[in-house]
């Protein structure tokens, strides 16, 4: 029967086809290199980060005339999918930006190169040992943190000031946050904030504010369906009141600033990581301000400093030395550090951080000031999330869609999520 054969093997065949296509792309790129070593370097980010990265890469190419770097970037969601397919197809890029969630899976899956093999080229001695350890799996260094970041409530400064609602202070609780958003919605006639219910990150901050965690030490679920029901009931009520963005807006979130309600001019505030918030400046020309994440009712802070992203090298790269040189350049070179600023978070190289702290300007300074205002008040970060968390982040959004579109009650959706999460973590 025509069409039948395409089904049964679709998984493997799709992988094969993708490999062929991707290999094809790689091949053409190499021939265009004209005998040079060609490195593929991929990352996620906003256009601002892209422009600065290109600049830094151009400088690297100038210093290494025999190396050509092919770069590509996309929004986080798209990047995550693409990298997963490249990695499983054995076609991971030479140098790749990684999220905390991907380290465990890709290191134990032999996608990442053991960086101990290139330690002569790639220097890590100026990185804080505690921070460096976040890129270790089973005692081996597989990835190097590239910056330190933390979450923030980012808001349209002018819109908030014009509304007459008092600006957020140095700390606030979730109920104070909700009250402020409610007032903003009343004064501005549009939702105060994006709906945080869809965000596993925001949920984690809320959970930590109550002294709990997403995962236990032995990588099991650290919360119950009751906790999640409470969180989703809280956000669902705000959504019904029009205080946070409606489902039609929330479902369009894809990790890019362009598709956030704040970026589209449909809300006053948003939740995001501090460094990527620079992307809003192109969309909210009057400027944005970073406020701390809300804390628990007793003032327990939920947010924490975490390695905002990592750099890793593909295990199957044909040019480990050159790839290591690129990573070393991005982390440790003075000139590169000047160009990159805080676009990936505050630099991890201690010397560079001290040198550049006074030179940071514009949004880089905003991020740096924001982090110093939190310094000393936050609790220790949780351990690296288990492999399954990569998939669960998406599941979380999906299950909340069922709530925000009113197809399930918060309780039903929460129980679904807990079932799915347990299955995911067991396998």
């Amino acid at each position, binding site marked *: 029967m025509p069409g039948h054969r395409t*089904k049964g093997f*679709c998984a*493997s065949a799709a992988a094969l086809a993708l490999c062929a296509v991707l290999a094809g792309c790689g091949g053409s790129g190499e021939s265009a290199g004209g005998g040079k070593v060609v490195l593929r370097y991929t990352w996620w980010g906003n256009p601002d980060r892209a422009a600065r990265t290109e600049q830094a890469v151009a400088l690297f190419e100038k210093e290494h005339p025999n190396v050509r770097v092919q770069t590509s970037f996309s929004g986080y969601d798209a990047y995550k999918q693409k990298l*997963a397919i490249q990695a499983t197809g054995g076609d991971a890029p030479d140098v790749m930006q990684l999220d905390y969630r991907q380290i465990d*899976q*890709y290191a134990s899956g032999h996608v990442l190169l053991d960086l101990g093999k290139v330690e002569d080229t790639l220097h890590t001695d100026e990185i804080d040992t505690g921070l460096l350890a976040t890129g270790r799996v089973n005692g081996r260094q597989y990835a190097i943190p590239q910056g330190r970041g933390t979450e923030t409530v980012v808001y349209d400064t002018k819109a908030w000031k014009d509304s007459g609602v008092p600006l957020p202070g140095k700390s606030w609780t979730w109920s104070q946050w909700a009250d402020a958003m409610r007032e903003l919605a009343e004064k501005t006639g549009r939702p105060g904030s994006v709906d945080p219910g869809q965000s596993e990150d925001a949920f984690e901050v809320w959970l930590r504010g109550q002294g709990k965690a997403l995962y236990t030490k032995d990588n099991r679920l650290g919360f119950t369906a009751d906790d999640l029901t409470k969180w989703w009931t809280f956000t669902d009520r705000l959504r019904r009141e029009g205080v946070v963005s409606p489902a*039609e807006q929330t479902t369009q979130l894809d990790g890019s600033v362009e598709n956030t309600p704040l970026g589209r001019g449909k809300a006053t505030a948003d939740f995001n990581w501090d460094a990527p918030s620079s992307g809003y400046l192109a969309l909210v020309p009057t400027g944005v301000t970073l406020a701390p994440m809300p804390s628990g009712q007793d003032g327990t802070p939920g947010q924490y400093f975490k390695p905002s992203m990592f750099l890793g090298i593909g295990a199957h790269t044909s040019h480990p030395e050159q790839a290591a040189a690129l990573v070393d350049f991005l982390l440790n070179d003075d000139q590169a550090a000047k160009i990159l600023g805080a676009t990936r978070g505050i630099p991890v190289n201690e010397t560079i951080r001290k040198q550049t702290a006074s030179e940071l300007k514009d949004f880089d300074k905003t991020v740096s000031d924001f982090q110093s205002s939190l310094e000393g008040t936050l609790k220790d970060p949780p351990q690296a999330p288990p492999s399954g968390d990569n998939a669960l982040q998406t599941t979380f959004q999906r299950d909340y869609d069922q709530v925000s*579109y009113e197809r399930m009650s918060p309780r039903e959706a929460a129980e679904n999520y807990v079932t799915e999460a347990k*299955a995911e973590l067991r*396998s």
Partner: protein
Amino acid sequence: MTTTQTPAVPVPATTAPPGKRPKRQREGAAWVFLSPWVLGATVLTLLPMAVSLYLSFTDYDLFNAPRWVGLRNYTQMFTEDPRYWRSVTTTLTYVVIAVPLQLALALVVALALKNMRRGKGFYRSAFYAPSLLGASMSIALVWRALFNDGGTVDHLTGSGGWINKPGWALLAVALLTVWQFGAPMVIFLAGLQQIPAELYEAAAVDGAGKWRQFVSVTVPMLSPVLFFNLVLQTIQAFQVFTPAFAVSAGKGGPADSTLVYTLYLYDRGFVASHMGYASAMAWVLLIVIGAVTAVLFRTSRSWVFYASEGDR
């Protein structure tokens, strides 16, 4: 290319002229010509199918070696995965919406084109064009822009963004498929031209109007073609992936409303790295499509009319 200069394969012309080669040699030649297909079918179809069947009984994350789990993937699918059943319902809804709409549109356009005197070639190409373009990702992205909030459809109808409403998103996906009605249309056209003109003349003499002619002559005479199109389009609809993937930006949203079967399969296999589970899903789909096709063939006995049978 230098091969053009080399002479053709030396032919032992003196002993065995082309028409009288021994049988074995003729078979050998057949195999040579068949080899690309045989190779492709074995390496790219049969082998992956066998591997996929094996994987469906394992827990395989694509990085580490597969681990045998027996029927666990299948039991999990049927008893513990609410999202799986949502994807089944979504796919069935999609098939029921898209297939009849597409076939009806293809038939209507084919009927209109059949009697057209001037510009036939132009219109045929014009109506076929979407089928050539539609498979591409770019059209799916255009679709996304058309049906998003603030998009063209929103501006024209004030209905908001279809792709952000669970009740409407699947319709936007189905419309993308329906729009690509070129292939069934061409087949219908060919079928329509096979119907002898004297049947219409005889019907006209008997006083049948246009509608009566359509119901009593066109439909029965066209039924084998209709059946062929129905089977083909149904199979394709069960396997729909690209439009759903592109229109929902790969997520099958909003609220899983466009999470069709193959999209969920892709999600399990490549996003969540459960290739064993995805393989099990693929095999269930294969069996279901086989069963549905068998049912279609069975019902066809009562409504498909073959002219050769009619002679008896």
